[in-house]
């Protein structure tokens, strides 16, 4: 399996070339084009469990993701017996980043997942109160296993290697490595700082590991655009 990311950083698009027998999984709605030799199958976007209960649970989890996290219920599996390519792209203007997973855990903000291949498992992680406060939804998407992961952003993606502590605005968070600890803070310190700095709440990462942030904030765009609309 080979892949190439073109048209970055503003309008990145991913092409994955599949050899016979290989599979790549993409977020529903992300397909731009594919060779006819690739078959597309729609599947529930959760877990690998078998049996009725597992499927039911997967459905509920997927539904929650849909409602809370602006994410899709379903993913598309692209498989091929003869080989061929599929082109995938996210909806918003932004970049695509590839990450080769070797058993570690990555946590992605809602909307950041684009595609994966190989023995990779996607699981919803309860973000707890901190997830609620950080407006990242209640959930992060936990990605672990051995294989390829492609994730996406609104704007460019900057990787920050944290050694100690680092602060990121909640709306700019794309994802982080699972060995980092996340806590929610007020950027200015205390209530006044929260109100006066205009920075709202920030995510503090402590430990050692990598964080990805996006150079634009969707909420900021919506906040700017909304008052401009005709009444």
């Amino acid at each position, binding site marked *: 399996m080979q892949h190439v990311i*073109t*048209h970055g950083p*503003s*309008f*990145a*698009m991913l092409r994955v070339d599949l050899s016979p027998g290989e599979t790549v999984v993409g*977020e*529903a*709605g*992300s*397909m*731009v*084009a*594919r*060779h*006819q*030799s690739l078959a*597309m*199958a*729609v599947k529930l976007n959760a877990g690998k469990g078998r049996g009725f209960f597992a499927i039911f649970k997967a459905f509920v989890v997927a539904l929650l993701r849909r409602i809370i996290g602006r994410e*899709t*219920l*379903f993913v*598309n599996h692209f498989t091929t017996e003869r080989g*061929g390519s599929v*082109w995938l*792209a996210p*909806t*918003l*203007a932004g970049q695509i980043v590839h990450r080769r997973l070797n058993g570690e855990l990555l946590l992605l903000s809602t909307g950041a997942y684009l595609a994966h291949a190989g023995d990779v498992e996607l699981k919803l992680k309860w973000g707890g109160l901190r997830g609620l406060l950080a407006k990242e939804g209640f959930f992060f998407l936990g990605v672990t296993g051995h294989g390829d992961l492609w994730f996406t952003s609104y704007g460019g993606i900057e990787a920050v290697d944290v050694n100690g502590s680092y602060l990121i605005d909640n709306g700019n968070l794309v994802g982080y490595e699972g060995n980092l600890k996340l806590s929610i803070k007020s950027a200015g310190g205390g209530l006044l700082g929260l109100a006066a700095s205009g920075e709202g709440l920030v995510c503090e990462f402590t430990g050692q590991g990598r964080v990805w942030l996006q150079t634009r904030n*969707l909420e900021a*765009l*919506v906040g700017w*655009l*909304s008052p401009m*609309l*005709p*009444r």
Partner: protein
Amino acid sequence: MHVEILYRPAHAMARVHLAPHESITAESGSMVGMSPNLALQTQSGGLLSGVKRLFGGESFFRNTFTAPDERGELLLAHALCGDMRVLEMTQAGYLLQSSAFVASTPNVLVGTELGGLKSFFSGAGLFVLRATAPSPGLLVVGAFGGLEELYCDGNLVIDTGHLVAWDATLDYSLGKSSSGWLLSFLSGEGLVCHFRGQGRIWIQSRSAAAYGKEIGSLLPPRRR
């Protein structure tokens, strides 16, 4: 005539160099700047073709810019952020996604046609434009996002929201992305175009409809 594309890929603009007495026809509203010696003529080509053009996602009017006895210059841009491309007219001509048309030399005939009966359900791509020319000419197209040229060897399936233009040598049919309507809906892919034959296809890396839906769903509802 010579056309160069500047500010690629995110904010492309076409600079058209017109020789004396040359003209170019451009989508209404696409003019960014022009030398003062150009003559501007607005045409709808008759009410019917103007209305058809509206259905095609274009504006009612098109403007033709003509240089006098001396050279002139015209700057053109597409409404959305993205790349532009100059295509040389071929014998077979091109088919265009309705909003991709930016400009063409005056010998290019641009007509609206129904893109297959199935497209009635798609909402998008109900009409496509067919551009043909009896002699050499140029066609300028604009995209939302990056532009990529693919070669179809009888085997490509493309999401309708990502189509820009394709060689008219290709056969195309609109269809579901999966085997059933329910699965197609769930897959989020909506309608796709199946291409057969040999030819080039230009795709855009973003779908304006999908982008509008995503941002639109976050905006406050309009008050009536």
